[in-house]
């Protein structure tokens, strides 16, 4: 940051518009404002601070030029403006703080001054910054400003014994709080994530996966067994069919076997039909809840009838019909009546009992629904009874068929031909095995179906658990990252603080040894772990407390320029009364060295400060000089440029 110019309108003793340019050339980087005490040096210094940071302007009314204020009529306004042009990292900025003060009964209204900052790029595009205070702070933070724009006479306060200003200056200029805050915020976030992981974490997914694996193994075994059974059933069937064929071919057993074939077909057909009926009964039973409503429907009809009798619900006489009779004053039988006679009162009673159309419709719907429900229930009960009867008959028939089949078996076993009896015995064994296999096959099928359902269910549970697990994995990753980052920042912070301390110490020592005239006496400058500045004398003793005001100023200046150099903040040094406490060798040393320690130097000096020593050493580096001319008649100051001969 290099200041280019300042424009003041009605600011303190600067009446109307006053303008001054600052020198920005690298070799002529010094701008000097000369002025006697009270000429306006401090006002100009305040103007810079007020414009850029609103510093020194708590009471705007006290900043406005008194002449301009006096010349303003009540009800009129006075503008007060400070504009500063500066360059920062290749871009040109115009900062302006302005306020229109309205005079009300000679008292300025304490209004808030508006701050604007516009940026002109190298391409010439100019646009206002939407967050001017933020941008200004990013260019040169407000808490760093006092170390670049300062009152020379108070500068030695920085290095006075017991002062914590050095620590504050290092922290602010080197932006150390950013690292401290980063560590603290990362730790805070890591702790939050850790609590969340603890709250949500479980072994649910692991348990579900183990269970699923177990089910899959069971299913695999069942499938394998089903295939084995299929084959055994096929073989069993073939064995039985083979024997049946042999029996059919035998003269002695032929008729019995044929009869058995026929019985088997009947049994088969019956069993198919039984299955169908069972399915129908199951369906009817699923809707059987209406059966339990039969008694309730009956009761509902009774209640509705009672209510009708009491006239609480529509009795059939519509409200509008009675109203019409009352209006026409003619009875339903055609006989006229008059008000309050017997017929009139009877109709009035009926009207009270009658109901509106809506209620009547509702009652009718309700009655219809109950009637339908009742009818459905009766139909279902009837069908259920019929199917149950049919099933019982079928079962009875099948039982008879089985008995007949058993009888055939006995007859076949009883045939004297050994071969036939032996065949029938074998058939019995094969049939037993076959039926056992069929039963096991059905059980296995049912088991596979149950396992499939369990697997579908467990998959759904796994999906939910996996989603939860993913959330936990992400949370866990976040916690880990935040913690590692917090630890890393802690490590960096410690190292960076130490590096910073060492660098500032070395640079301060370097500058101090150039500026202090008792170079042999002051052996060392130290900045300890707590950022406390100390000077060591030739006897190795700490000597900061014994330094003179001038020496403290030199030490402060050394420290400030060291930090300016190390921070990377390219900011001007703006010093009000810079050499007030310096004399002789110190003044010469400072005047000689200061221009090369900063990119831009702006000095507000008294005539006493601008002596031969400072003039000789500073003028070769001075690009602009101004006199602050106080006019006793007007009580105002004019800024006039000093031209070199």
């Amino acid at each position, binding site marked *: 940051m290099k200041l280019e110019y300042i424009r003041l309108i009605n600011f303190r003793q600067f009446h109307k518009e006053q303008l001054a340019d600052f020198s920005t050339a690298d070799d002529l980087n010094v701008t000097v404002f000369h002025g006697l005490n009270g000429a306006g040096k401090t006002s100009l210094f305040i103007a810079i601070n007020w414009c850029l940071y609103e510093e020194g302007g708590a009471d705007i009314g006290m900043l406005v030029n008194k002449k301009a204020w006096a010349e303003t009529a009540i009800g009129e306004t006075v503008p007060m403006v400070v504009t500063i042009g500066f360059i920062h990292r290749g871009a040109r900025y115009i900062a302006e703080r302005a306020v229109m003060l309205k005079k009300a009964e000679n008292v300025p209204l304490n209004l808030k001054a508006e701050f604007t900052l516009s940026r002109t790029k190298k391409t010439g595009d100019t646009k206002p910054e939407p967050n001017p205070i*933020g941008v200004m*702070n990013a260019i040169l933070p407000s808490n760093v400003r006092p170390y670049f724009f300062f009152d020379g006479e108070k500068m030695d306060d920085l290095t006075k014994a017991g002062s914590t200003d050095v620590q504050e200056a290092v922290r602010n200029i080197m932006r150390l*709080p*950013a*690292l401290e805050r980063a560590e603290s915020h990362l730790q805070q976030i890591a702790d939050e994530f850790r609590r969340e992981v603890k709250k949500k974490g479980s072994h649910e997914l692991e348990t579900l996966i183990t269970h699923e694996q177990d089910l899959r193994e069971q299913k695999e075994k069942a499938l394998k067994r089903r295939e084995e059974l299929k084959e055994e059933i096929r073989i069993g069937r073939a064995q039985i069919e083979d024997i049946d064929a042999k029996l059919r071919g035998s003269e002695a057993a032929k008729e019995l076997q044929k009869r058995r074939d026929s019985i088997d077909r009947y049994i088969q057909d019956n069993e198919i039909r039984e299955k169908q009926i069972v399915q129908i009964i199951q369906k009817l039973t699923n809707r059987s809840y209406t059966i339990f409503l039969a008694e309730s429907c009956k009761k509902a009809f009774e209640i509705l009838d009672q209510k009708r009798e009491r006239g609480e619900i529509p009795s059939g006489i519509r409200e509008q019909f009675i109203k019409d009779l009352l209006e026409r004053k003619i009875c339903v039988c055609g006989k006229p009546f008059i008000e309050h006679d017997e017929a009139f009162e009877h109709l009035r009673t009926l009207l009270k009992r009658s109901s509106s159309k809506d209620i009547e419709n509702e009652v009718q719907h309700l009655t219809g629904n109950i009637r339908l429900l009742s009818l459905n229930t009766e139909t279902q009960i009837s069908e259920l009874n019929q199917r149950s009867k049919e099933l019982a008959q079928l079962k009875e028939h099948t039982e008879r068929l089985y008995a007949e089949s058993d009888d055939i078996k006995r007859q076949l076993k009883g045939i004297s031909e050994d071969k036939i009896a032996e065949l029938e015995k074998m058939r019995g064994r094969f049939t037993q095995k076959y039926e056992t296999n069929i039963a096991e096959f059905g059980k296995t099928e049912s088991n596979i179906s149950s396992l499939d359902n369990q697997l579908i269910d467990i998959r759904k549970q796994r999906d939910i658990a996996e989603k939860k697990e993913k959330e936990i*994995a992400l949370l866990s990753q*976040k916690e880990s990252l935040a913690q590692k980052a917090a630890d890393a*920042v802690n490590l960096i912070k410690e190292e960076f603080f130490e*590096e*910073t301390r060492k660098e500032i110490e070395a640079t301060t020592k370097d500058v101090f040894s150039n500026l202090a005239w008792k170079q042999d006496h002051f052996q060392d400058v130290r900045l300890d772990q707590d950022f406390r500045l100390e000077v060591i004398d030739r006897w190795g003793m700490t000597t900061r407390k014994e330094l003179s005001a001038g020496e403290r100023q030199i030490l402060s200046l050394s420290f400030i320029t060291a930090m300016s150099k190390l921070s990377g903040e390219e900011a001007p040094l703006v010093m009000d009364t810079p050499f007030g406490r310096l004399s002789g060798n110190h003044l010469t040393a400072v005047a000689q060295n200061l221009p090369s320690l900063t990119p831009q130097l702006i000095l507000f000096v008294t005539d006493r400060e601008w002596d031969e020593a400072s003039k000789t050493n500073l003028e070769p580096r001075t690009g602009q000089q101004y006199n602050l001319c106080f006019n006793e008649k007007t009580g105002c100051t004019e800024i006039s440029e000093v031209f070199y001969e």
Partner: protein
Amino acid sequence: MKEKLLELIKQLDPELQELVAEVIEKEREFLDYLKPRGVVEEIRDLIDRHAKDDLGLLNQGGRK
């Protein structure tokens, strides 16, 4: 000293370098009032983005 800070960050575990640099930058913006509010929220978002990236949960265009 900014270079020194960057040098220190580069010595960190590679998976942390970018995150740490971004967090410190956010804190600097906060200190400068460029973004005066919600710095913790912004850091939380940075961690979220980096964690998702590490777990491969981000789209290809999601980072950088």
